């Protein structure tokens, strides 16, 4: 019961703070031109080091904060938090008719974080299909590469330490989820994601781990194109 209470508390408190944007939390349909929708949610991160690092839901629950703005009939842009002290943006283009049930949207994004001097570049695509006018399952595949410039090393500098290769740390981020939308401007999203580690710069003192992500979010503001 304690863990459940913690999870609920985290989900409630998370949106009021800076977030991490670990989840995808968007369908392939774009925001209508000139409209804005917000997103608040929470994600739980699960990976192999939780137990040995003494982590649980109270430490691994993070906030999801973001907005999407419609730029054109089939193009929108998303802005969101990124690893607490950073921000990210992505542009999505629905290549099909915006009113069609099926949407396919390639996307491209950038992110930067201050604390560890991180630059992120991502590219991928989302596919979604609207059922019954309110339920929209979606799936996304994104490759995100992170160049980490300032993650501190716990050892003194040494000539034996590996040098940076410049390749960065790459993640293939898969996400499956669904959105339940109402025409009153409210929606609920739930999502599961998995990060596959694709490449790792041995000289930046940091390595991503294969990670599972489970999260929920509420969406508010203008509804997506119908």
């Amino acid at each position: 019961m304690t863990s459940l209470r913690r999870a609920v508390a985290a989900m409630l408190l998370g949106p009021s703070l800076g977030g991490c944007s670990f989840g995808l939390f968007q369908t392939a349909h774009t925001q209508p031109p000139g409209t804005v929708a917000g997103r608040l949610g929470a994600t739980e991160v699960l990976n192999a080091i939780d137990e040995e690092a003494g982590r649980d839901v109270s430490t691994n629950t993070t906030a999801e904060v973001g907005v999407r703005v419609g730029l054109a009939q089939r193009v929108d842009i998303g802005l969101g938090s990124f690893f607490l002290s950073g921000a990210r943006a992505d542009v999505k283009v629905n290549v099909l008719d915006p009113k069609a049930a099926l949407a396919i949207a390639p996307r491209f994004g950038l992110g930067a974080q201050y604390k560890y001097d991180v630059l992120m570049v991502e590219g991928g695509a989302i596919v979604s299909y609207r059922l019954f006018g309110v339920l929209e399952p979606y799936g996304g595949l994104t490759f995100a590469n992170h160049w980490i410039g300032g993650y501190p090393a716990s050892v003194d500098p040494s000539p034996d330490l590996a040098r940076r290769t410049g390749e960065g740390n790459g993640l293939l981020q898969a996400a499956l989820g669904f959105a339940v939308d109402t025409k009153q401007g409210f929606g609920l999203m739930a999502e599961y994601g998995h990060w596959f580690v694709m490449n790792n710069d041995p000289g930046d003192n940091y390595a991503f781990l294969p990670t599972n992500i489970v999260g929920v979010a509420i969406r508010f503001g203008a509804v997506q194109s119908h």
Partner: protein
Amino acid sequence: MGGLGWLAVLSGCVDPFDVVGVEEIVTEQRHDDPLADDRLEDKRPVWDEGRLVEEEFSGCLVTLNKSDSVTRLTLQASGAEDNQLRGRIFPNRRAALGALSGKPTLPSIEVVNGALKPFNDGLYAAVELRAESGEASTVNKRELLRELLNELVDRASNGADVEKPHARTAAEHVATALALGGDAASIPADLAEEATQRATEFRGSPLFAKPIGFYAWNEDLEAIFTRDRWLQRQYIPGVTVDPPFAAFAELALVVGRGDALSDAYAGVLDLYAGLTDPFFDASPFELAAFVPDAGALADLGAVESAFAATRPPSFPDFPFCNPGVAALPASESADNRMMRLLLCNHELLEGENLLDGLIRKIQIGELDLTPRADSGWYDHQLYALETLLVPEKGAESEHLLLTRAYKEKLVETFKSLLIQTRETHVKQVAMVSAGPTSAPSEPIPFSIHPRLVVEPFPTFYLRTARAYRFVEGVLASALGTEFLDDTSRLTEDGTRSTLTLGEELHEKQMLLYGLHALSADSIGMAPELVEDELSGFPLDEARALARAWLASVMDDADVARDPRVSLPVAIETVGGRDFAIYWAVVGVKVLHLHASFPESRRPTVVSVPWQCVHDGWEPFEPYMLVEQTIQVRRPVEASPLDREEFRALCDAHDNVDDIRAAFESAP
């Protein structure tokens, strides 16, 4: 957990980066082939907009920024002249320079060391002579030995009965030292015959007793060498019997009193611990706790057992490899520690000689030459050499792209400098068993090349300067500041320098800081002097001195001196027969350097005079004078050769193989 606790968690108590990943420290094994060519992709010099240098090419004064450039160094032997020079060994640098017939040369590290080695010898010789007389200093070895002998003789006559025989034994040991030191007049008549006989016997062991190095310059230094080598003779518990343990137990009792005699004795030990390195064997001071009073001498076996229990042997199967106790112990250096492992632990590889084994251990990181807290001058000197074997440890590493051929040259440089440096400390280090011109009317084309003014290893010059600062402090502390102000170094021809030791020490440091700055400038690296060094040695002044010295480096009398030396460094038994291992510098040879900027790591041309046109990049190909070293094995009963004898042997041959063969078989 309350609401505030939740707030803390979500606002970053566990950083999100630490939730989805971990710290990862990756080390690379670069030691598999320490001589492998450097890779340009591993070099990441950092751009510094303000690090500008002005260099002249074809009369054009060009402003360059080399901060993110890399200079490639390799050796070449392609032309007919290179082939003609290959394998030739010259007796000295002047002879080698003559064979080059005026071709451009780059002062090598060996040439710089050529200016330092005579100074180091002269400085050490001056210290040795001053430490005999004690004028204006607290160290007076001759007087110490006399007073020690008087004290022991008194105790042998008037001490407690249990002490008398041990005091007599110790008196015989010290009296023999006085006999060897040419101070027989201070020996009481009843000890004289015994002392003279022991002195004669010791002189019959030339490997230990024959003065070599600068100690052969005059009779006073010869006497100091032989006497101190006698005082280095050790007692190893359960292994040796002569000198007997009783002598050292008695000395321990005497120094344990903490009186003026004890202070004088400690002063001598402190001098050599700083001037060379701390000791391998224990001194009587370390034994003193086990001999609190004369009564303890009644059971010497118990004293020896208690003492031995505090010093468990590192090499139980090779007793001679373990330390013992000595009246004036020999020093233990970083290279000796590793040589002991190589020889006593059988860590030499098949077919590997001692020198190459030592180098391998340094290259793979098993021997770190970083001075310890109590290290003396010799360890500080060795630290300067480390950058030659593991250049990636030096700050210049990001600016230099070294080929295998050049790294092999650096290994030879290390060998030569190690031998020359160790030879200065030969008595004390234990044996194991580069102006504007008037504007022309036509544009002047010019090409840019690496403008090297001295072999570009700034870390070596910096660490050597710091080693001089260290020994300056040691000497001021041990012998008083007056010693540096009123003493001059000795030279090989028996004369004294016209400058005081203090003046020369300052000049040598200024020169080395200047060479550090000039060589750093030449490869785009920032000089690394710290604040107190900059206040004592302003960089502009240091650069000017170094430039002036480099402009006439071959006119420097010290550089012109004969670099050939040899010395025994260890003893090993092969096929039941004892051999001494000798290291030697047998002459000077010529190498042809090829320095260039890789295309992707060239300097940025910041400004060019209006009348000049930059039309390309070219290599820089000067010659360098370096030294040839060898390691040989000679029967242990064969006398070491002093410099004159060794140089005469080398003069009789013109190639390394013949010199090696002649040295191995020389009587």
